């Protein structure tokens, strides 16, 4: 089918339904159909990492996945990172990014947060080099990465956070 199809996605613990052609990327579907615009598009060819979201707990480039492919999986976006998905509280990573001035224009920030989240899930006490290597798939044009790396290390030094769901 090239025409629009119904697509049901589980995002941040909530079920959403929309319609889109099979060619619509997960990133576009999240942004345009579900109005979850925290996921950004910086290159649309899988190189910048701004569109990084979690699928079944693992990071994926949402520009390299069609929305139809994400059905039946458990998705998480930056909007769901804070505890209980609320607007008030911040996840320890978000707090550390704030405290350490790890963001400037903010455009790449959601992707970095999701990547760093997966890193700390799989490696709760990374070294600086491990953080730099892990985050090398996320591009930032403002910060020179230094404070992002500092923030991830600072968040890693804190007690284990509650997961997003």
């Amino acid at each position, binding site marked *: *089918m*090239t025409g629009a*199809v119904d697509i049901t996605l589980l995002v941040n613990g909530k079920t959403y339904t929309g319609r889109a*052609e*099979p*060619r619509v*990327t997960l990133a*576009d579907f999240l942004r345009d159909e579900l109005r979850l615009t925290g996921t950004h598009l910086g290159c*649309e*060819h*899988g*190189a910048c*990492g701004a569109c*990084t979201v979690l*699928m079944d707990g*693992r*990071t*994926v*480039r949402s*520009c*390299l*996945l*069609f929305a*139809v*492919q994400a059905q039946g999986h458990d998705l998480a976006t930056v909007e769901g990172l804070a505890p209980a998905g609320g607007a008030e509280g911040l996840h320890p990573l978000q707090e550390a990014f704030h405290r350490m001035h790890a963001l400037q224009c903010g455009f790449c920030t959601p992707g970095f947060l999701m*990547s760093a989240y*997966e*890193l700390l899930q799989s490696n709760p006490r990374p070294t600086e080099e491990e953080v730099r*290597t*892990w985050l*090398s*798939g*996320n591009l930032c044009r403002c910060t020179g990465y230094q404070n992002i790396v500092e923030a991830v290390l600072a968040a890693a030094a804190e007690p284990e956070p509650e997961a997003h769901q």
Partner: protein
Amino acid sequence: MKPAPFSYFAPRSLHEAVGLLVEHGDAAKVLAGGQSLVPMMAFRLAMPDVLVDLGGVGELEHSRVEGDTLVLGAMTRHRAVQDMGWLRTRCPLIVEGVELIGHPAIRNRGTVGGSLAHADPAAEWPAILLALDGEVDAVGPNGNRTIRAADLFQTYFTTALAPDEILTEVRLPLPDGAPTGSAFVEMARRHGDFAVAGVGTQISLHPNGTIVDARLALIGVADRPVRAGSAEAALRGHGPTEEVFAEAASVAIGEIEPSSDLHGSSDYRRHVAGVLVRRALTIAARRAAAA
């Protein structure tokens, strides 16, 4: 940068998938992890009319060890291989190669079979398969067949697979017996970039310390991954010394035909390949000696 329209099919079985390929012929393209295909579709460099997504074909997602062979279903994600802790000591060539593929999010989606079938001459999996003398299984309308690594890669982005065949399984013989060491080294412009040149190697030592078996697979230096057979021959029967490795490197760079691009001229790639052959052999020899 939005893909052109296509019809999307998500078969639940291999049988169904092959049926779709037969039905749609050249118009169809197999979607595995999508980490190479989807960017090409975004640039509209690839505009398949039909996408057959293997994501729902459960029988392609298995991995096991059979005797001394690592068996990977075609839809095994790079990340799954990277997470096989035991493999890091048993055959570092594989894990080191896999870790050089892109970035975490790419490795979470990209698949072994997808990488082999895509046959990018600078990709790591083809070199791993070649270096280990592995083989793949493919299924098509006429049933199953096995393709040896040496026969799989033909030229840029082209394999021996027919358009209606699906790569289903990869078998990688793991080292056994003699003390063996392996390594995968490459030079890329940035961490995670495709290699300017790369080398996967495995060498085994005789109890007297000489090399009894050597494999060298080079990437980024020809229209396909290259086994440097003459360099391997130059290693066999010799001690793992700097001079021998240097000689092997100079033989190896005669076996490749790099092309020029933005990240390196043909001469530069050839030179770097020689340097990397030497470095990879040095690491592998050290590991073999310690094995």
